């Protein structure tokens, strides 16, 4: 990150002066040649270093500022050619659409907002999938070539799996297109609502008096448009289909990777899952046994108390007046040694109070 404030600040100040005088001219009916906000912003960006600085907050601030300056530029462009009091909701909407570079299924504010979320702290389906696909690209190429060949002989099963994988890829693309279409719809709805909200604010006394105020109206409208789509039955179906299709692709590729690694003698995910599941089941059974043992100890202790002559069967574990406590934090070494000394006499089976399971952190 460079500290070039001194170098760029005079330029920026000069441009702001130009901006103000140009706008004043425009308000008098002269054409506005150029809007310098974006250039000023670009200069500021240079002073900080580019986006993707490695500082996530900085990148987010810069990203948000960029969008806001795009927005302001669109508004100022509109105001420069039309006096503020003459700007209509429809003309404001048009200006905003232009500021966003037009509206299309692959280029719309809703999709941009979703894409913008991906970061170190939040990786979406699309982002995760893109990163992950980089790793499995060779498989995709392999699978594509397999599609053109008939499946027979020794490689039949393998080829069929790869063909199924390609089918899953194709399905994912289809679902992604359906999703993008809905985001386009959300953006259009958002702009419709923006226009409606502006119309509502045309009443005397309710006018918008600041850029930020106008931006907030845009955000409210965009969220409402998005929510209307996102809460629809169609979106529920499309969203589910998109996620499910991506999972099918991932699963088929994971299976292929596992087969490949297994052929090299490496353990795969499936084997680890088996181990983890068995370990989990085993630990659960041990916990249940421990608790049963504690209950038996308590019963035996109570019985011994009721019959001091000793008719009851003595418990294996240490009998105390209080039921044994579960392990409390990490035992101190001295306490551990003391207990280890006492333990062999108490039981040669399961020690109810302590287990490695409970003392691990």
């Amino acid at each position, binding site marked *: 990150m460079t500290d070039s404030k001194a170098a760029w600040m005079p330029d920026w100040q000069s441009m702001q002066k130009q901006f103000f005088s140009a706008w004043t001219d425009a308000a008098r009916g002269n054409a506005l040649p150029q809007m310098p906000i974006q250039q000023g912003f670009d200069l500021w960006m240079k002073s900080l270093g580019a986006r993707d600085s490695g500082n996530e907050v900085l990148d987010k*601030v810069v990203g*948000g500022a960029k969008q806001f300056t795009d927005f302001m530029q669109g508004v100022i462009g509109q105001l420069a050619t039309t006096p503020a009091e003459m700007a209509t909701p429809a003309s404001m909407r048009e200006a905003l659409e232009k500021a966003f570079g037009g509206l299309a299924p692959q280029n719309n504010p809703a999709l941009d*907002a979703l894409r913008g979320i991906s970061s170190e702290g939040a*990786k979406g389906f699309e982002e995760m999938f893109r990163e992950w696909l980089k790793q499995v690209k060779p498989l995709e190429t392999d699978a594509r070539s397999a599609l053109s060949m008939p499946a027979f002989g020794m490689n039949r099963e393998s080829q069929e799996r790869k063909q199924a994988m390609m089918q899953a890829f194709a399905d994912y693309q289809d679902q992604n297109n359906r999703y993008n279409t809905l985001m386009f719809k959300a953006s259009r709805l958002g702009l419709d609502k923006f226009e409606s909200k502006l119309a509502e604010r045309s009443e005397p006394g309710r006018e918008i008096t600041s850029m930020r105020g106008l*931006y*907030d109206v845009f955000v409210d409208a965009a969220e409402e448009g998005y*929510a209307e789509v996102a809460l629809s039955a169609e979106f529920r179906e499309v969203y589910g289909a998109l996620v499910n299709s991506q999972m099918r692709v991932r699963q088929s590729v994971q299976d292929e990777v596992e087969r490949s690694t297994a052929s090299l003698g490496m353990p795969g995910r499936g084997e680890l899952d088996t181990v983890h599941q068995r370990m989990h089941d085993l630990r659960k059974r041990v916990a249940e046994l421990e608790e049963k043992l504690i209950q038996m100890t308590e019963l035996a202790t109570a019985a011994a108390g009721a019959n001091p002559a000793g008719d009851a069967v003595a418990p294996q574990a240490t009998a105390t007046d209080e039921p044994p406590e*579960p392990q*409390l934090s990490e035992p101190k070494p001295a306490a551990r040694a003391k207990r280890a000394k006492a333990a062999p006499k108490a039981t040669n089976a399961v020690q109810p109070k302590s287990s490695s399971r409970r003392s691990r952190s």
Partner: protein
Amino acid sequence: MGPLRIDPKAAFDEVSRYTQKLTAGAKVLREVDDVEYGATEKEAIYREDKLVLYRFKGDSTPINKTPILIVYALVNRPFMTDLQADRSLVRNLLAHGEDVYLIDWGYPDAADRYVSLDDYINGYIRRCVDVVARRHKLKAINVLGICQGGAFSLCFAAIYPDKVKNLITMVTPVDFHTPDNMLSHWTRGLDIDLFVDTLGNVPGDLMNYCYLTLKPFRLNLQKYVGLVDILDNKEELENFLRMEKWIFDSPNQAGQAFREFIRDFYQANKLVEGGLKIGDKDVDLKKITMPVLNIYAEQDHLVPPSASIPMKNLIGTKDYTVLAFKGGHIGIYVSGRAQREVAPTIHTWLSKHG
């Protein structure tokens, strides 16, 4: 007349101020200190697997003889309840004389993939409640469940009513099928078995992404435009960064528990429809007969009020109190209003219930 009454001079000033803030912010961002959360001193009193049960230390001896155990959600870290000294539910409860314990679930890894709701509720929570009860020589303690942890607490209180003296739920969903519940709406088309079988544990990053996509313009753009307002204020910026750290410090979700939670709560809505089993235990909310205080947030976009309000008619208690907090899912812990209202309400309510 049009919708705009923006004076060119005022607009110019606004642009200038914005860029000045950005410029000053560039300097402050370089000077800002590392931020941590978890302000109150605490002692680990029990550990099991990755779980740690903490007891918080107040400045004075607790007055209330029945301690509170906070059961937080599995998503995000539980230290939202103790974010910083002047924004801490825990600290406020301690100041009112409550004795506060909290379960920190830790960060599940691949070895925890098969940890289920049975393990969490009939295992971890039950043992933590037993540990706290034993320490205080009590049969039952107060349980404060938050969000998903609130749903767990409802299940726990229904299965083990004798272990819960008073139940407090905060931003807790009960009815997952209300029309304004976007998160629930999205999960309904998921093939949750395919999802978990493929991913194993569910990445915390993916959870965050889903939360941010609930309001993509507000949470990903407007929030950072607004940040510029405080970008030149080191202290406020650090507060903001502390919150960011909490938001994005998200543990992965144990696959099996996630599968069961989505299937039984989000998709089948079994807390309302009935038929919920946790392990081999039936969950019948009518067995929740202890006093219940339910606190929901009126502007909650994750757990809409409509998801929490039906609790009253689903549980068995005749002693039900509700607090509608004016704020959102996070503001209920960290806003100025929360500091004034939430802990005092809990304390006063507990005082009345012994």
